[in-house]
């Protein structure tokens, strides 16, 4: 179980004053479930992921993983405890190839598994294995590389931050299939997907709506669809150029 207890976090705001972006957050995540975190831009979704990974430190509050307090552990220590985060905007590296990064994510991975993971995210290994994760990749390609690392690593807590952003529809559909088969009802993993994509929401067991640094609502898709419908449809429209509707 991953538990966030009474977390507060402040960032530097305008004119030198602190701005509170997480305001007393309490959340629990159980193994065997896929969670969606959704809600408006700037609500604090990415900040929550970074707090769990250790990239951000809370001003107060605690984080526990399986009853161990990890609030003061470094990023690498948390990685070794089994937490992995797929960045919303992954950084570029001049001179490092896609193969290098996946091998860092999963030391000792064999070629077959490496290539398989790349295909899972729609990167043909023949074309991409030795490509630099540098300025030559598009935003969508960067997202796929990011997701490939996270899939290759195989952790206890896996957090994806808008995996759909910039990725074409065909790849999203394929990715959803992979997320489903890897994480759905997997008793060993806690999966958290920050998303605005309706099809991703459909494979999640629970949806958490975050706004103003707080949980606004939490429940199954049916229970809270009325709250998020506009936001999701609007995002889908941005991505697809037209409104796609699915039966619930």
């Amino acid at each position, binding site marked *: 179980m991953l538990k966030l207890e009474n977390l507060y976090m402040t960032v530097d705001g305008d004119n030198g004053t602190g701005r509170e972006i997480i305001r007393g957050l309490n959340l629990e995540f159980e193994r065997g479930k896929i969670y969606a975190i959704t809600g408006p831009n700037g609500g604090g979704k990415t900040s929550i992921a970074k707090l769990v990974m250790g*990239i951000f430190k809370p001003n107060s509050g605690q984080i526990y993983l399986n009853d161990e307090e990890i609030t003061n552990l470094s990023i*690498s220590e948390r*990685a070794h405890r089994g937490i*992995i985060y797929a960045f919303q905007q992954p950084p570029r590296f001049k001179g*490092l190839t896609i193969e*290098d990064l996946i091998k*860092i*994510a999963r030391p000792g991975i064999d070629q077959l598994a490496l290539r398989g993971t790349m295909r899972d995210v729609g990167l043909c290994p023949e074309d991409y294995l030795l490509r630099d994760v540098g300025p030559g990749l598009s935003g969508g390609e960067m997202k796929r590389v990011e997701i490939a690392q996270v899939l290759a690593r195989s952790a206890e807590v896996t957090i994806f931050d808008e995996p759909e952003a910039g990725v074409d529809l065909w790849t999203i559909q394929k990715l959803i299939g992979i997320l489903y088969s890897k994480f759905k009802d997997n008793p060993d993993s806690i999966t958290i997907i920050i998303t605005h994509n309706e099809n991703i929401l459909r494979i999640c067991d629970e949806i958490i709506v975050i706004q103003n640094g707080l949980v606004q609502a939490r429940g199954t898709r049916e229970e809270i669809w009325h709250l998020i419908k506009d936001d999701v449809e609007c995002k889908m429209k941005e991505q697809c150029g037209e409104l796609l509707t699915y039966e619930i």
Partner: protein
Amino acid sequence: MKFDNLSLELLNTISDLTKIPEGAANIRLDGEAVIRNSSENVTITPREDGQGFIMEVKPGTRETVHVPVLLTKTGLQETVANTFIIGENSDITIIAGCGIHNPSHADSRHDGVHEFIIRPGARLKYIEKHYGQGQGKGKKIFNPTTKISLQIGASAEMEMTQIKGVDDTFRSTIAYIEDKASLKIVERLMTDGDQEAKSDVQLNIIGRGGSGQILSRSVARDKSIQVFRAALVGRVECTGHVECDSIIMDNARISSIPELVAEDSEAVLTHEAAIGKIAGEQLVKLMSLGLTEQEAVDVILDGFLR
């Protein structure tokens, strides 16, 4: 000729050699050519003063040639001039490089003057690594001067790397590029401690359809200082590009000075220069994959200088 372990280790670092190479080769150890082998199509003859050689490659030759230099005696200072004449339509790889081991308090210095004459249609790949080791206060100094002339339709790619341990370097490179010839210079440099590195590259494109490229990647750590001047001169219709990209750390100082000179309205010359520290996001990303901060820095720098 038998090398001691120290020389073999240096040789391996600068040229990946684990034994004496087959084919044409010139290995200079402590001021003397200890191996000088010509092959059927590549002849290496000593200069009259003994300080250097002239290598002549027959037209149409395809071969790899090794010409490493090793300095293991303390306080040795030398100036060596080598000339490489690459015959028409040949395709040659030259693996050079210089390793200094200096455990003492006296400076060791190797000044190499290399001249390349690349005949029409020939292709050259030149790889040079500079490396210094030894704990004493004596400096390890390299001052390479390189002159390149590329004749019609010739092409060359020159990779020059200063791996580590070089205290002081001033490299000066000047090239003349004729019709439809092309030259790409790739420089990689890392300095730390109190090291200083200066590099002056000037490519003169004097023939129509010629092209020149300078790509420089460097990392400066601690209190080290780097100064790059990269100049492209387009006298005629031609293309050229300069790219200087540096990572700065600690209290280092880097000056990057690209210069473009066009003397013809059909000359297309571009430059990009960037200096910056390692981005926090890069470190955080690699740490989230389980690396420590120090490991993350090393991975980023190794990749950048690869």
